[in-house]
């Protein structure tokens, strides 16, 4: 037990005396009026603060591990870096509180009011926030892995760069919330309301978005690989650079999507092209039959040639090509095999280039407009790459040898 009684604490608070670093472990301060108390670095582990009035208190760096704070009023309290591991904060009022870097791992915040609270870098993995009010709260870089956010009100909340892997966000209201670069892989978002949310570069791989409202979301460069989107609403979503689900669509409600790079509505597409965009299953890939495969075997030499390959073809080169120009159709995959050497060559077009062997350019740029360029662990690349208008995607594996200059398209 701690060093002070309840009455002693209340007297000191009334006299505006500091209680910093006080040992108050296990104390019963339930329903106490402690507004403005100075409890920085105090140890309140296991304390009972049920329904206590703690408005604007300073609990910076305090320990509140396993404390019972159900129904407490902590509006505008300073809980920066406080340890609330396993604390019971259900129905607590934390509106406008500062919980930056606080440890809320496994805490119970069900029904709590966190409107406008600041929680950047907070540790909230496995925390229970069911039905909490997070409107306008700042949760940037927070760790919410496997947290429960079912039914939360989180309009305009900022989850940028947050870790929401495996979080349960079912039926939550996240309208116009910010999830830029957030990790939401495996999250449960069934029937969640995400209308107008910012999901740029968000990772939704394997997420369950069944029946979710994704209208007008900005999902540019987000990934939906393996995600379930059946029954979701996607009209008006910005999808440039989106990584699709990889599976056929089922029952998605979408009238149009915006594919413009700037997300300014200038790249509207309608029915015909939508499935390919959302699934990532391009018609050219589906159409790639063995007949459109070209193979140049090891030992062959081809010089001073210009080659054109139709869209969707797959071209494999294990030969030596010298002074050649290779034009790729849309989605054509050009693979320079481990024994392949492209010397003094140029590759142009909206294709995918994979270099396991060697590439040496003839003149700069050696590659123009490729959608993807990969140099594998055994590959070598010497030359310039002028990127695709929508930016080329690159992969360089460990072990690859490069003398590369990248130029904007």
């Amino acid at each position, binding site marked *: 037990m701690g060093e002070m009684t309840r009455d002693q604490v209340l007297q000191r608070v009334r006299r505006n005396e500091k209680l910093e670093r006080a040992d108050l472990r296990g104390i019963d301060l339930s329903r106490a009026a402690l507004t403005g108390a100075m409890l920085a670095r105090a140890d309140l582990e296991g304390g009972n603060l049920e329904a206590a009035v703690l408005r604007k208190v300073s609990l910076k760096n305090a320990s509140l591990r396993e404390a019972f704070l159900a129904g407490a009023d902590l509006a505008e309290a300073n809980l920066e870096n406080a340890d609330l591991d396993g604390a019971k904060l259900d129905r607590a009022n934390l509106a406008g509180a500062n919980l930056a870097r606080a440890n809320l791992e496994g805490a119970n915040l069900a029904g709590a009011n966190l409107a406008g609270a600041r929680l*950047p870098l907070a540790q909230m993995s496995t925390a229970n926030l069911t039905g909490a009010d997070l409107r306008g709260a700042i949760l*940037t*870089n927070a760790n919410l892995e496997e947290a429960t956010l079912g039914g939360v009100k989180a309009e305009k909340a900022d989850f940028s*760069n947050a870790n929401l*892997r495996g979080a349960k966000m079912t039926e939550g209201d996240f309208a116009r919330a910010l999830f830029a*670069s957030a*990790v939401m*892989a495996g999250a449960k978002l069934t029937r969640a309301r995400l209308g107008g949310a910012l999901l740029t*570069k968000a*990772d939704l*791989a*394997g997420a369950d978005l069944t029946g979710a409202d994704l209208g007008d979301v900005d999902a540019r*460069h*987000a*990934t939906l*690989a*393996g995600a379930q989107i059946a029954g979701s609403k996607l009209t008006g979503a910005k999808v440039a*650079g989106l*990584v699709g689900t990889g599976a056929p669509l089922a029952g998605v409600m979408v009238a149009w999507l915006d594919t413009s790079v700037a997300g300014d509505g200038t790249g509207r597409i309608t029915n015909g092209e939508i499935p390919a965009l959302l699934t990532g299953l391009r018609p050219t890939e589906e159409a790639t039959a063995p007949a459109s495969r070209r193979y140049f075997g*090891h*030992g062959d*030499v081809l010089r001073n040639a210009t080659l054109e390959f139709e869209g969707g073809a797959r071209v494999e080169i294990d*030969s*030596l090509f*010298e002074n050649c120009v290779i034009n790729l159709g849309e989605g054509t995959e050009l693979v320079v095999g*481990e*024994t*392949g*050497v492209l*010397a003094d060559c140029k590759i142009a077009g909206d294709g995918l280039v994979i270099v396991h*062997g*060697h590439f*040496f350019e003839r003149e700069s740029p050696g590659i123009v407009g490729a959608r*993807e360029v*990969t140099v594998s662990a*055994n590959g*070598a*690349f*010497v030359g310039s790459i002028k*990127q695709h208008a929508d*930016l*080329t*995607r*690159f*992969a*360089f*594996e*460990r*072990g*690859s*040898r*490069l*003398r*590369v*200059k*990248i*130029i*904007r398209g």
Partner: protein
Amino acid sequence: MSDNKRTLIEDGTELKGTLTSTCPIVVMGRVEGDLSGPSVEVTETGVLSGKAKVTELHSRGELAGEFDADLVQLSGKVRDKTRIRAQTLEVRLKREDGRMEMVFGDCEMAVGDAPDKAKAIANAMNGHGKKAKKADEPAAPAADPPADG
């Protein structure tokens, strides 16, 4: 304890000048200038602009300037006029968790030993390149050919 020490440039902090550290450096804010240390990690919120010479550079944020490292792992952004020299570079098309990777501005990268064009062509002409790990490296002693049939 010292093994866990890191020099942190927090999000919201802007540092201009020279930073030298014996500990790993984590840039969550903005650094403009010269930086040296055993390793540098630039997080998603970090911006490193200037020069850095380190053993390892891991960036998920923004880089601009000149960087020299044994190992470089990149995601996030590389801005215009950036030069990277490294023994080993890793840039993934997608992360393991499926997220998209890099955005490159105009930049130059020199990674590993310089590929030898003449040797690569000679190996391709002579058939020495067959399944060689790196065709322009000295060929390994010939293995016994696989038995027929």
